[in-house]
């Protein structure tokens, strides 16, 4: 049986771990609420841009625009969003597995696939497997407009220059605090359907953040200075909505996944503590019994 002292040390260590996991749980809970609120703020922009697109989506110009031309896919770019830090359950491995599965299913060679990694985990994963990681953005602060813009620019340039034929984004979609789903979306070529799917995701059907997604009234618009000019400006904006939304979703997912993971770690630490305390008491009891029997044994020996 392990010595009393060793068991005592284990109990103390377990208590310390529990303090840490409890603190991380509280921090993640606060960050999760903040991420959800940020998602709410971005909704006005998404709705406005989506309604503008829906009015342009019937036009012939949009199909011919360099950012929305459909080509056969020989080279693809994947934007993979993970977190920088671990300890968030199956969050990152879910995204990475989904990305790897998609790449395999596409039948493209490793050299025909390029990666833009957001978050250290994605960078490590794809670098280790010999993929070309063209750009890396850390994912340790709040989502900012700058990161969104540079991501969209990097992707749009490569797509417009035809150095890639399709741009995907892979991230963890936030369904609820207990459920996140790895999701893959096409960023380029831009299509009205993809954008509509994103806007539908932004507006949850139920819960505290539900809102109306009423269909806009259609009207005939004057386009100034020309339809092509308007599309040139608005298409990158629409791409930025997809990217921005993906970043927000994955941050909300990260924090809630970590919160849940830390909650179960705290629970487990508590359980383990109880178990060890029981073991400690048994060992102590055994030691006392032994001592008593030694003393009585000694007394009886002397009485003889």
């Amino acid at each position: 049986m392990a010595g009393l002292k060793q068991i005592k040390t284990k109990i103390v260590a377990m208590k310390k771990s529990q303090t840490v996991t409890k603190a991380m749980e509280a921090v993640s809970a606060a960050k999760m609420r903040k991420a959800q609120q940020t998602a709410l703020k971005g909704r006005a922009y998404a709705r406005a841009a989506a309604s503008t697109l829906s009015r342009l989506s019937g036009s012939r110009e949009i199909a011919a625009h360099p950012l929305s031309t459909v080509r056969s896919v020989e080279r693809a770019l994947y934007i993979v969003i993970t977190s920088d830090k671990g300890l968030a359950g199956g969050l990152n491995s879910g995204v990475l597995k989904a990305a790897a599965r998609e790449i395999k299913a596409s039948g493209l060679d490793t050299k025909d696939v390029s990666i833009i990694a957001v978050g250290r985990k994605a960078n490590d994963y794809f670098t280790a497997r010999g993929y070309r990681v063209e750009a890396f953005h850390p994912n340790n602060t709040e989502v900012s407009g700058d990161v969104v813009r540079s991501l969209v620019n990097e992707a749009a340039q490569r797509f417009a220059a035809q150095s890639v034929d399709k741009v995907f984004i892979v991230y963890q979609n936030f369904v609820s605090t207990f459920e996140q789903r790895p999701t893959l979306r096409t960023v380029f070529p831009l299509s009205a359907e993809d954008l509509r799917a994103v806007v539908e995701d932004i507006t949850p059907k139920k819960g505290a953040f539900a809102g109306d997604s009423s269909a806009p009234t259609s009207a005939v618009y004057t386009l100034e200075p020309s339809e092509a000019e308007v599309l040139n400006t608005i298409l990158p904006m629409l791409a930025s909505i997809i990217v921005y939304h993906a970043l927000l979703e994955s941050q909300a997912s990260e924090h809630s996944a970590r919160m849940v993971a830390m909650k179960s770690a705290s629970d487990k630490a508590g359980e383990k503590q109880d178990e060890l305390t029981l073991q400690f008491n048994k060992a102590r009891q055994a030691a006392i019994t032994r001592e008593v029997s030694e003393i009585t044994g000694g007394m009886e020996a002397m009485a003889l």
Partner: protein
Amino acid sequence: MHLVIAKVDEVLFEGEAYSLTIPATAGEMTVLGHHEPLITTLKAGEARVHLAAGDNPKLFAISGGVLEVRADGATVIL
């Protein structure tokens, strides 16, 4: 008219406004209520929002974007 000025990560203005003066690509323009439906690109400059006729305007520096005017209001996305 109902006016929204939004960046991708924040909403700069949302509410009722009397007029919006904004540097469109084709030249500066002012939008009042019941303007004809219009979508135009913007260039860098300053957007001025009057909440009521003749008051001190709210100023927003912009570096491009799109203005959409509908029957029920206007939206500027930067």
